[in-house]
């Protein structure tokens, strides 16, 4: 009997010592949590999509409270409402929030490009891409099996003629589609960037011409004709400097492959 009492006492004493140490530690080593962080967190939609560049909504809330210079408008799903909410909590100006949407940088639907093989395997783009880069003759373009459409939380992407299309009214710019696309041809761009190069092919002109009737051949006409010199050629493909672009549309008119478009 006395034997078991010693055991009970020993465990209780050790337990109490542990508890006291923990209480003291919690008291002396507590980190004051800024109460504005949960308040900011309340303003965010809680989708934890990571479009802001931080690990989830909590990460952004913490960063925006601690960093005075960080813009309040990084939350694309929350948009202007979230920015205004954060501005209210922090007492800062919200700044202008520009809506961002996903852009599929490919125009090769099944009328413009052909398949080099007849793919019968697992119907996801990732799986198809593992097999010699997918069935499409263009190694850079959209496979069209709709992995992005499936991943989209807003159902803003649909597949038309074997090519993914984004409904910009539904798109919230979270960027999940651009992460799942095995070809990495989806970018998230502000809607104010009206001129877009909708081709991702980096091959030389002759090769491109054989695979796709609307593929960029890297001729560089757009770059030469641009009145603002906003276009540079990188990897056989034009890159637009949106800080210079005035959306005049000269490049789109001159492009022989018609792969530059002006929207809006």
């Amino acid at each position: 009997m006395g034997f078991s009492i010693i055991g009970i006492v020993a465990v209780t004493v050790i337990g109490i010592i542990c508890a006291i140490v923990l209480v003291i530690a919690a008291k002396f080593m507590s980190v004051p949590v800024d109460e504005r962080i949960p308040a900011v967190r309340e303003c965010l939609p809680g989708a934890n999509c990571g479009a802001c560049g931080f690990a989830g909504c909590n990460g952004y809330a913490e960063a925006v409270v601690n960093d005075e210079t960080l813009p309040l408008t990084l939350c694309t799903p929350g948009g202007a409402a979230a920015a205004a909410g954060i501005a209210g909590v922090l007492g800062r100006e919200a700044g202008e929030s520009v809506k961002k949407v996903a852009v599929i940088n490919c125009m090769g639907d099944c009328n413009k490009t052909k398949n080099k093989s007849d793919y019968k395997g697992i119907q996801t783009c990732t799986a198809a891409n593992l097999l010699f880069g997918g069935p499409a003759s263009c190694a850079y373009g959209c496979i069209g099996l709709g992995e992005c459409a499936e991943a989209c939380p807003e159902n803003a992407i649909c597949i038309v003629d074997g090519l993914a299309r984004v409904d910009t009214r539904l798109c919230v710019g979270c960027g999940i589609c651009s992460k799942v696309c095995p070809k990495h041809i989806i970018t998230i761009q502000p809607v104010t960037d009206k001129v877009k190069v909708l081709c991702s092919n980096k091959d030389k002109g002759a090769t491109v011409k054989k695979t796709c009737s609307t593929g960029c051949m890297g001729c560089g006409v757009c770059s030469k004709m641009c009145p603002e010199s906003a276009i540079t050629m990188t990897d056989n493909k034009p890159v637009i400097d949106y800080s210079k672009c005035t959306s005049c549309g000269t490049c789109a008119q001159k492009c022989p492959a018609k792969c530059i478009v002006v929207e809006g």
Partner: protein
Amino acid sequence: MKLLIAIILTACFVNNYVLQQFLGICPFLGVSKKVDQATGMSLAVIFVMLVATAVTWPLQMMLLNPNGLGYLQTIVFILVIASLVQLIEIFLKKYIPALHASLGVYLPLITTNCAVLGVCISNIDSEFTFVQALFNAFGSGLGFLIAMLLFAGVRQQMEDCDPPECFKGLPVTLIAASIVSLSFFGFSGVIESIFG
């Protein structure tokens, strides 16, 4: 020195906690979906195993054994390890926020991890000295890391395949785990031949 290396290699490969002794299966299945998460978790496990050994070994040898309380080993170890992990978390949050940010999420998960408890108990059962016990803890943690990384790789491959409906999810994961475990049986006897 030779003995210490043998202890590390044995703990790491031959007696791998996850794949040979089947302890710590919960995080092995839970956090092995992505390689970066698996690494974070395993580093936290190595850290906690080392600290837990450093505390429980003296506790057993200096407090429990001399007073004839050896039978309290399991309950006292659980108690001490749980509070220790809490204490480490509080400490890291205050003084090393960077480390807390990378390991912090995983620390509460290993509060009562059976692999950690397993290391502490096996240190006593194998009658290791204090230094040997620390090396054993390090080797066991390293073994956990290897198992997690191997299996995270296997699982990422499995994400892209299409098993029959009845095997989807946990069943096919457990089958894969058993095959990975089988491969580790190849290590039995190797250490004895090298160092024996």
